[in-house]
C-alpha cells in the first residue's frame, strides 16, 4: 500500500457522517455506521482510510483496526466491486451450499475474498445469513438469491457488471 494515497469523505458522505453523529450520545458509537459509509465509498478499508477516520473521530487507529478485523463484513484487504456471500451453515449445507461455494471458486478461479482477475467478484463463505427458507442461498451485494444450484448461481453471478 502506497503511503501517498489519501481518502476523505465526498460531500454527500460528509453530510451523512454529520447526520450519523446526531444519532448517538457519543462519537465512538457512530464508528460502525461510519465504517460502512467509508467502505461504501472506497470499496474496502485500507490504512489510509483508517487513518482518516481516526483523525476525523478522534479514535486511535489500533482500535479501529481491531473493530474492522472483528466483523466479517468489514474488509482490510482489497475486494471486488461485487461481494457475494455464500451461506455454508446447516440448512444451506443440507442442500449443497458448500458444493456451490467450492464450485463458484473453481468457476471463477479464485479464493476466499480474492477479487476475480477482472475485479468483478469477491466470494465470501459466510455463516447463516438468516434466509434458510431459500436454502441454498447467497447474498449478491445487498440482495438474497435463493433456491440455487451451481448452474443458477454461476448464471446469476455472470450477469454482474
Amino acid at each position, binding site marked *: 500500500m502506497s503511503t501517498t494515497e489519501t481518502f476523505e469523505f465526498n460531500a454527500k458522505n460528509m453530510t451523512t457522517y454529520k447526520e450519523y453523529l446526531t444519532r448517538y450520545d457519543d462519537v465512538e458509537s457512530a*464508528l*460502525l*455506521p461510519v465504517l460502512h459509509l467509508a467502505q461504501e465509498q472506497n470499496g474496502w478499508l485500507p490504512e489510509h482510510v483508517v487513518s482518516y477516520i481516526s483523525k476525523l473521530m478522534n479514535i486511535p487507529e489500533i482500535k479501529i483496526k481491531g473493530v474492522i478485523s472483528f466483523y466479517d463484513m468489514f474488509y482490510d484487504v482489497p475486494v471486488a466491486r461485487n461481494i457475494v456471500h455464500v451461506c455454508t451453515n*446447516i*440448512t444451506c449445507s443440507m442442500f449443497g451450499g458448500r458444493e456451490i461455494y467450492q464450485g463458484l471458486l473453481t468457476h471463477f478461479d479464485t479464493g476466499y475474498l480474492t477479487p476475480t482477475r477482472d475485479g468483478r467478484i469477491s466470494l465470501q463463505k459466510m*455463516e447463516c445469513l438468516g434466509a434458510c427458507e431459500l436454502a441454498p442461498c447467497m447474498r449478491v451485494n*445487498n440482495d438474497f438469491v435463493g433456491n440455487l444450484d451451481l448452474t443458477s448461481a454461476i448464471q446469476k453471478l455472470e450477469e454482474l457488471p
Partner: protein
Amino acid sequence: MKETANNKDYALLSYHHIPGVHNLEIFERAGGYETMKACFEKDPEAIKEEVKLSGLRGRGGAGFATGVKWGFFTKDRKAQKYLLCNADESEPGTFKDRYLVEKNPHILIEGMIISAWALATQKGYIYIRGEFYQQAVILERAIKEAYAKGYLGKNILGKGFDFDLYVHRGAGAYICGEETGMISSLEGKKGQPKLKPPFPAIKGYRGLPTMVNNVESLAAIPWIMKFGAAAYKQWGTEKSPGTKLFSISGDVNKPGVIEVPLSTSLKDIIEIHCGGMRNGNKLKAVIPGGSSAPVFNAEDAYTVKMDYEDVAAKGSMLGSGAIIVLDETRNMGDVLKWTLEFYHHESCGQCTPCREGTGWLESVFKRRDKGLAHKADIDLLDRTANSMRGQTICALADAAAMPTQGMIKVFRQELEAYVVAPIKK
C-alpha cells in the same frame, strides 16, 4: 412465502396479508398505531403491569419474561436510558424477525414507541445484522414516516414525551446477538460480551440503563395492549402463553415462517403447516430451537409440544423457534461438523474455554476429514464440551457444547461410524 389463513387472527402476522402494509398509511387504515395512541392515555406503570400479566417471554432465545425484565428498569422517568431492539437474528435456522420487519416494519415501531412510553426511554436503536441491508432500508423508511406523523421525535402527539429511534447496522458477527455483545458493538467496539451482573437494565449502553428486547417480543406489545393480557393467554400454556413465530427449514415441503399458539405440536407444524416431509421421506431428527438446541430423534419430535417447558422436559430448548427438519437421508456427523465450524468461527475469543474449546470440538472433524479420527474422539468431544459449560462470560460456549452433547446422546453410533468412515474424494 405463504402464511396459513389463521395467521390473520394472531398477534404478530395479523397485518401480513394486507398488500403494502409496510406503508404507514395502509398500516394505519388497518388499525395500526391506534393502540399506541390509546397507550399515551394510560399510566406507564399500568402498561408494564399488563405486559407482565401477559406472561410474554423474550422471543430472542432465552425466554426470560419480558415484564419481569422491564421490572428491573429504573422507574425514574427523567434518568437517561435507552431502548435497544435486538434485530441481530443470527442463530442458525432463524429468519422470523427478518420476515416480520420486511413486510410490516410499523408493528415493531409501534411496539417500540409503546415500550418507550412505558419505560420512559428517550432514545431507541434497532440493532439489525449487517446482512439485512434491505430490511434496514425498509425500517429506516418506516421510521421516517413515523417521524413525519409526529409519532417519533420531540413532544410526541403533544404528550410532552420525547423518543428518537434509529437503525444501527451490525457488520457480520453472531455474538452481537448476545445483549451485552450488542451493547459493546453499539458503543463502536468489537462485539465482545460483558460480565453480568450488572445487567444491561441497570448498566448497559454507555453505562446507562438499557432495555434490550427482541423484535418479536416488542412487536407483540401492541396486540397485548389492545386486547389485554387475558386475551393473550388464550393461547399456549400457563408458563408459555401467547403465539410464537417459528422459522422452519430443511426437509419439509413448505419451509417458511408461521405464527402459531405456543404448545402447538411439532408434528402439526411439520405435517400441516409445512406440508409434510420433502419427497415423502421419513423424519429422522429435528433441531427444535436453532443450532444451539440439542437435537430430537423422530420419536421425540413427533410427540413434543412447542412450548418452553415441554421442549425443555425432553432435553432441548425452544430457543428462537428455529426448527431445522432432517430426513432419513441426512448424516448427523455432517450436521454436527457444520454446527461446530460455525461456533468456532463465531467465538469472540475473550474466554479461553470458548476460544480454545470450540476449536478443539471442530478439530475432531478436521482430523476426520484427513482420515485421522478415532471412535474414541466422540468421548473427547463429550469431555471437551462438558468442560466448556458454565465457564465463560456469555452463553456461546454452552451454545456449542449443548448440541454436541445432545447429538452424542441421541446419535452416538452414527457419529462413531462417521468419524472413522473413509473419506470420499
